[in-house]
C-alpha cells in the first residue's frame, strides 16, 4: 500500500485536487466560488496529463542542429503538453463565459449567493 502510494504520489495528489474541485462545486453556495472550483478541476486534469508525459531527466524534444535523431529516451513526451495547451484555452474560454454570465446575474439579482438568487427568481 505504501509502495503504491509512494510510487504514484503525484497522481494521488492530483486525485485529491480533483476531489477538492468537485467538493467545491457541490458544497459552496457562492456562484463565483463554484466557477473557481471548476478551475481547480481543470488544473487537476491538466496536471494529470502533464504527469503522463513527464519522465525523470527528460528534456525538451527539440533536435539541435547537427545532432542525429534517435535517442527518444531522453525526451519528454510533448503530446500531452500540446493537448493541455488546448485544454487551457478551453478552460479560459469557459471561465470567460462564466464570468460574463455572473456579471449579468449580479446586475439583475444583486447577489451571487445561490439561495438569494433563487429566492429573487421566484418573485
Amino acid at each position, binding site marked *: 500500500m505504501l509502495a503504491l502510494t509512494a510510487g504514484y504520489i503525484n497522481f494521488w495528489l492530483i486525485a485529491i485536487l480533483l476531489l477538492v474541485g468537485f467538493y467545491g462545486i457541490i458544497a459552496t453556495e457562492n456562484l463565483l466560488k463554484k466557477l473557481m472550483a471548476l478551475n481547480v478541476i481543470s488544473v487537476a486534469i491538466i496536471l494529470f496529463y502533464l504527469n503522463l508525459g513527464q519522465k525523470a531527466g527528460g528534456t525538451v524534444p527539440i533536435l539541435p542542429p547537427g545532432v542525429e535523431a534517435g535517442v527518444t529516451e531522453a525526451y519528454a513526451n510533448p503530446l500531452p503538453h500540446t493537448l493541455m495547451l488546448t485544454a487551457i484555452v478551453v478552460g479560459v474560454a469557459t471561465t470567460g463565459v462564466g464570468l460574463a454570465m455572473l456579471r*449579468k*446575474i449580479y446586475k439583475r439579482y444583486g447577489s451571487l449567493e445561490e439561495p438569494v438568487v433563487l429566492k429573487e427568481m421566484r418573485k
Partner: protein
Amino acid sequence: MTAHLPALIPVAPLVIALLTPILARLSVTLVRITALTALLISLASSAGALQHALVEGTWHYHFGGWAPPWGIEYVIDPLAGIIAVLVSFFCLLVLVYAAPYLAGKPAQEKGYFYTLYLLLAAGLLGMVVTGDVFNLYVFLEISSLAAYALIASGGSRATVAAYRYLLIGTAAASLYLLGIGYLYALTGSLNMADLAVLLPPLAATNAVALAVALITIGLGIKMALFPLHGWLPDAYSSAPAPVAGILAAVMAKVSAYAIYRILYFVFKTAAPVQVALDIAGWMAAAGILYGSIMAIAQRDLWRMLAYSSVAQMAYIILGLALGNIMGLYGALLQILSHAFTKGCLFLVAGSISHQTGIRDIPRLARLSRRMPWTLAAFVVAAMSMVGLPPTVGFFSKWYLMLGAVEAGAWVFVAVLVASSLLTAVYFFRVLEYAYLKEDQGQVEGQTREVKAAGGWELAPAMLVPVLILGLGILTLGIFSDQIISGYIHFALPWRMP
C-alpha cells in the same frame, strides 16, 4: 474541392462564425446570407460525404495531410454521415426559423446570435465527423460554450439556468477528458480507429473500466440521462425559441451519438462496456418513467416538453443497452425520430410563445382556430411521441420493443408500454386544451396582443420549418424501411453480422 468535403462540414460554419462579428458591422442581411450559405455548404458536404461513405466505404480524411496517429483524422462512415446530415439539416432549418425571432433586435445582438449559432453548429458537426477522441472534447466544448451563451441570451432567468448548465456541463466535459486521459496513458493514442485496435488486449484492466465509467458519465450528463438530467428542464425551458429548438433537436443527440461511437466502435467488446450499458439501460428505464411522470405534472408547455425529452432520450440508451440488431435499429431510428419530433414540438411551442406569448397549457384554449396549421404539425408530432402509426415514432418504438422482446427484457417492454400511455396522457391534455376547451376569458390581462404576421397565422419563415418537420415525421415513418435498410443498417458496429 470535393477532396476536402469532410473538412468543409465543420470548417465552413466555423470560418463564417469568426467573420460574422466583422460582417455584422456592415450589414445584418449579409450575415444572414453568409450564415445560411455556410450551413448549406455543411449540409451539401455532409450529404456528399455520406453518399461517398455508402458507395465507396468509409472516408478517412487526414487533416493537414498528417496521417494518424500523429495527425487528426476525420472519419465519415455511414453513421457519422447520417448524423452529420441530420445535424446540418436542423441547423439550417432552425436558422431560417430564427429570423422572425431576431426581427426587431439591435443589429449588434443579431450579430452575436449568428456568431454563436454558427459556433454551435461547427462544434456539433465537428463532434460528429472527428475520428479523434481529444478533438471530440474540443468540439464538445466549442458547442457547449456557444450553447451556454445562446441560452443566456434569453434573459436573466435564462442566464441563471445557463450558468448552472455551464457548471454541470463543464464538469461533465472534465470527466470525459479525464477518461480519455486514461486511454491515452494506456495506449499512447487518441485516434479512435487506433484505440479500437490497441484496447482489446487491455480490456480486463481496471483503468479501462474507469475510463468507460468516466466517459459514459461525462457524456451521459451532456445527453441528460436520468439521474444526470438536472440541468435540462431549466435550460430548455428558458432558452429563446430557436435555441431551445436546436438544443432539443440535435444537441443531446450528438452526445448520444458520441456514447454510441465510443462504446460500440472504440471499446467494442470490452467487458466493462457491457456493465456500463446494463447500468445505463436500467437508468434509462427509470428515466423514461420519471420523465414521463414529471411531464404530466408540468403546467408550462416548454417544461413539459423538456421533461418529455428526458424520457425520449432515454429510449436511445435503452436501445443501445439491448445491444441486439433490432435494439440498435431502434436506438438509431429514435435519434432521427426524436430530432424531428421534439424539434417540431419545440418550434411549435416557440411559435406559439412568439406569436401570442402563451406558455401555460391551460391558456392554449381554442388556439387551434387561430393557428390551425401550426397545431396540425403539433398533432402529428404528438402522435409520433406516443408512437402511433404511421409516424416515425411508431417505427422506432416498434424496433425497440422488438429488440426488448427478442432479448427477453420484459421489464423494458413494460416500461415502453407504460411510457407510451403516459406520453399519451400529457400530450392529450395539451391537445384537449388547444382544440376543445373554450377560452375562459383573459386572465388578468396576461394575453399579449397577437402579433400581425402579414395575414399568416405565423410568419412564413417560422411556419415553413414547422410544416417541413411535421411532414418529415410522416415521411420518415412511411419510408422507414428505406432508411433502415439503406442507411441505418450500415451504421451498425462491425461486430454485428
